[in-house]
């Protein structure tokens, strides 16, 4: 069913392009917009445009930033001897929230997936190797996802970096905090056992 107004129809179409939004939800969102104060709607539109225009990728680590290089790359309090490699900027955000890590980052922009046409050239892998040319970096921590594609990407990077003589580590896989052993799935539990550490 198509709505009677062309501009409303256009808005619904635009909303339904958003991830996870189907036609029904798009319709709901569009009607919500129509009921709002025009000033409020303008603010939303401005926020979307401003974010898109001002936010870009850091030219060093490819994190999203408004100032280039990004805050982390510029910071003097960060440990410049370690670079943690992640697939997406979301992953960086998640790691930052922990407050555990004080080093630098490198956002690959995805993982190797020949099925989706993603090879090393489609990722920011060469730029990572470039960063290792200064002797500052002593360790690369690979924090790609623990799935088939993420593991292949980790192995690929290790093959590239090891000959340069920089230490390569992979984040540990194990048990979630606050859970019971008996409820853990076998794969996770198996890995937690084989990757155990001294106490």
């Amino acid at each position, binding site marked *: 069913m198509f709505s009677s107004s062309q501009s409303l129809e256009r808005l619904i179409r635009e909303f339904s392009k958003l991830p996870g939004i189907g036609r029904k939800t798009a319709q709901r969102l569009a009607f919500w917009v129509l009921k709002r104060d025009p000033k409020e709607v303008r603010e939303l539109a401005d926020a979307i445009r401003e974010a898109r225009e001002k936010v870009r990728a850091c030219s060093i680590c490819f994190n999203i930033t408004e100032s280039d290089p990004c805050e982390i790359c510029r910071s003097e309090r960060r440990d410049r001897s370690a670079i943690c490699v992640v697939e997406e900027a979301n992953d960086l955000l998640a790691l930052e929230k922990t407050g555990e890590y004080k080093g630098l980052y490198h956002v690959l922009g995805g993982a*190797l997936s*020949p*099925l989706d046409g993603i*090879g*090393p050239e489609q990722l920011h892998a060469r730029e990572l190797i470039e960063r290792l040319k200064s002797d500052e970096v002593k360790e690369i921590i690979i924090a790609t996802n623990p799935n*088939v594609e993420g593991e292949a990407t980790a*192995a690929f990077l290790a093959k590239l970096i090891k000959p340069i003589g920089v230490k390569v580590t992979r984040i540990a896989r194990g048990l979630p905090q606050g859970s019971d052993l008996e409820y853990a799935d076998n794969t996770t539990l198996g890995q937690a056992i084989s990757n155990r550490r001294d106490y």
Partner: protein
Amino acid sequence: MFIQNLKLTEFRNLKNAEIEFSPEINLIVGSNGSGKTNILEALFYTGSGRSFRTHLDENLANTDSEYFRIEASGKMGEHEVHVEIGVEPGKRKIIKVNSSPIHKLGELFEYFRLVEFSPYDLEIVIGSPSVRRRYISITIAQLDPPHVAVLSDYHKTLSQRNALLKSFEETPRLSSSQETSLAVWDEKLAVHAVQIHESRKSYIHKIADIAADFYRRISGSEEYLKIEYNPSPNLEHFTAENFCEKLASRRQREIAMGQTMYGPHRDDIKFYIDNLEAKSAASQGQIKTAVLSLKLAQYEYLKQKLERLPIILLDEIFSDLDKNRLDFVMNLLPGLGQSFITTSKLSEVNNLEIFKSKFEVERGIPRRLKEQS
């Protein structure tokens, strides 16, 4: 272990059915197309999330329905188990055990373990290798549920590697970065291939003798059943290193074909009767005996490993097996734990007294048969 209650919604021709079973021997009577085999199929599905007749879930939903639902409750030792499976073909299966959702299919294999024997199983001997691979995958998963995750990672890696090979089609000489990419996928594939190879090799090795023994007892002859694993590639030492080497030896061909030429996705299992390959040389009767022996060996080995009696499903054995084979199975039955047997005619069954519960299915509606006095 046993299944006490089964509830089906929109499952094949069983639109809405609920059945209470006996923990011992159950008989299901129904004419062709009544839905009796569908009940066995649904029971099997509660243990593996799969059918033994089709690998397409679309075929399992009632023709008027977009989805189907199976609920089974029973016991494993002291523990109550309640399995709920909701399937909308094309979407992710929703599986719950004791009301908690299961996210990995492998976890479902921890509960009801079922061994099935039906006329469809002749395909294991005479059908294509993919039928045998499917059978052995499900069977090993029953013994070792994490095997499901290994298979899934292997197949994901395989698709990725094939896509990479295809992308090299027009490349006369690989760049060093392309070489490295391929090496990464080779190594990942090799790790999973070795795991699958070892599971299959050890399983077939373990059941081959048990099956040969059943074959001799059922046939009452000196014929010798040999079950042999035919792995791809056939290496003396199946290590990740040797596997990668084998892949490298066919690299040009792999790139030309856009396909991985070696690996467990090309495995086969061979059946020989007195050293003649059963697929081409055996009689219908010999093949039936071979499959029955394979299934009984599977049951026996599962029982030893689990230290519990698996559930056994026997479809149409009265019309399908001759008297000797049938007598053999009927004599085993009382020692096998919970079992489900179908027949199209009640008159085919001699010793009705061993069946603790009897059901009749008519056009998708099951009902309990009253005890005859």
